[in-house]
């Protein structure tokens, strides 16, 4: 699909959004920023629900907005889907009728309703009133309904905000599956980097109505460490090397090194296939540094690294280190940093527990 071109301005009395950006829509695009930064406004501009924006929006070579030439394609004709954080299911229709509302108005009808019902696991709920559903179920109906309209682009505006952890994981895995099976480009808005690392391939970072950065998800997560040192983390994508069920651990390969983490299973409880790619994150404050390798440690993960940067903030040091071309971020106290006399270029060992590595999901 041709890139999405946005060159837009919206002004309110206390807020201005100004964006000029071309976005590739090959995978899932994450849009990140704090509340009030303009993420949702951007989605409303793309969907046409914000009628006050001026400038240009071009999707798949179709001009959706060109305020100079007076072009404004109404939302119903844009063929863009939007899943709202509060679901917005039709209360007068049951689950199946909510889905059929979308399917009936779809022009192409390439998808079969039954397939999408299976994909979103709604088979048992079709005759239910939407008010009887849990918030997780409602959001799955909203997702299925949006997919059945067969949009060119699916926008998701903080769809997990009302869900508990297990429902979040289910829906995030479902989103990846939807993306994989239907090749549907998505823009996923969230203020949770955890969710975004699970689902997104690229990340657009917004702040006060402006774009602050755009790139691959891991690169952007590492750039964000600069802005918020206290929440610094390392975002990784590695392949599954082996399972060690006797220790309840799995190993991932990082070049010649191995990383160990709790046994990797999918939603159904099956071990992940050896060789599959997984998304992993580890917080900077979960990693410690020793100058020499030691066998007298309970830490299962020990990696030789080279220090590339050292930055001091609020009684702490944030170091970036490299192992097998993979950057890790490490946070240690200023006191330790001085005691160890660390400087850029030093070769040290980083170590962390298996439980410090968090499995986010499969990378397809």
């Amino acid at each position, binding site marked *: 699909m041709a890139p999405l071109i946005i060159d837009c301005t919206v002004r309110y009395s206390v807020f201005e959004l100004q964006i000029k950006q071309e976005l590739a829509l090959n995978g899932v695009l994450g849009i990140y920023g704090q509340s009030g930064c303009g993420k949702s406004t951007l989605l409303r501009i793309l969907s046409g629900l914000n009628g006050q924006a001026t400038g240009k929006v071009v999707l798949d070579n179709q001009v959706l907005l060109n305020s100079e030439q007076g072009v404004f394609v109404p939302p119903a004709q844009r063929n*863009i889907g939007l899943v709202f954080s*509060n679901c*917005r299911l*039709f*209360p007068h229709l049951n689950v199946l009728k909510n889905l059929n509302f979308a399917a009936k108005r779809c022009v192409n009808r390439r998808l079969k309703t039954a397939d999408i019902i299976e994909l979103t696991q709604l088979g048992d709920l079709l005759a239910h009133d939407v008010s009887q559903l849990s918030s997780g179920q409602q959001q799955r109906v909203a997702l299925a309904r949006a997919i059945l309209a067969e949009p060119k682009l699916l926008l998701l505006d903080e769809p997990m905000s009302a869900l508990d952890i297990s429902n979040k994981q289910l829906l995030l895995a479902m989103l990846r599956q939807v993306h994989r099976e239907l090749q549907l480009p998505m823009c996923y808005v969230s203020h949770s980097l955890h969710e975004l690392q699970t689902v997104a391939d690229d990340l657009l970072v917004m702040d006060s109505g402006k774009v602050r950065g755009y790139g691959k998800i891991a690169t952007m997560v590492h750039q964000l460490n600069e802005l918020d040192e206290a929440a610094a983390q390392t975002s990784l994508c590695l392949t599954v090397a082996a399972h060690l069920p006797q220790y309840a651990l799995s190993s991932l390969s990082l070049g010649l090194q191995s990383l160990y983490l709790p046994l990797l299973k999918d939603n159904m409880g099956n071990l992940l296939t050896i060789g599959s790619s997984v998304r992993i994150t580890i917080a900077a404050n979960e990693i410690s540094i020793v100058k020499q390798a030691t066998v007298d440690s309970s830490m299962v993960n020990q990696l030789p690294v080279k220090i590339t940067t050292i930055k001091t903030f609020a009684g702490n040091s944030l170091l970036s280190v490299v192992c097998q071309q993979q950057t890790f971020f490490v946070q240690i106290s200023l006191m330790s940093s001085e005691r160890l006399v660390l400087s850029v270029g030093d070769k040290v060992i980083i170590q962390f527990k298996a439980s410090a590595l968090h499995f986010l999901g499969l990378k397809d």
Partner: protein
Amino acid sequence: MNSDLLALLTTLQMAAVSTFILLLIGTPMAWYLAKMNSRFKVLIEAVIALPLVLPPTVLGFYLLLLMSPQSLPGEMWQQLSGQQLAFSFSAIVIGSVIYSLPFVVQPLQKSFEQLGEPLLESAAMLGAGPIDRFFNVVLPITKASFITAASLGFAHTVGEFGVVLMIGGNIGGETRVLSVALFEHVEAFEYAKAHVLAGSLLVGSFVLLAAIYLLNHRVKSSTL
């Protein structure tokens, strides 16, 4: 035909036609008022609400002046239809529509405001255009308020007296409605006939309202 029976027929006919017209013009009015942000909104709302507080005879008096062949609207009507507007069936229908307008517009406006934008936006994102959204989202969800609006409009029109008397007079089969017939019986000391009319209006109105409240209750509990 018995003159009271004729009055009943005229009344039902007037109320039915008025209710139909009220829904036809009241729905878009309520819709635009619900979506309106202009400061003129309160003025328009006040004008629509006027029949709630004005003595019907005041409204009737001004309508009579406007409908007379000497005034522009009255004259235009006469030239287009070939008949005088004042003291005709059309006159009492126009009068009832204006008189009952707030009873139709207010409940509809309130329910449209409550419905808000979220579900309409949701429908738009699924490819539903404005008319599609109205008939498949707005109408089914606000069904209860349409029933309320239609029945209040109908019942209020049946109970009308002052406006009809001012602009319709008392022409059998044309403008002589139940309330006017009742007044006539009382003036002529025909209390037995008056009892029949008053009693049946009372019971009829009660049955109508009770049926509506019951229906509304069922609709609400099935959609909520």
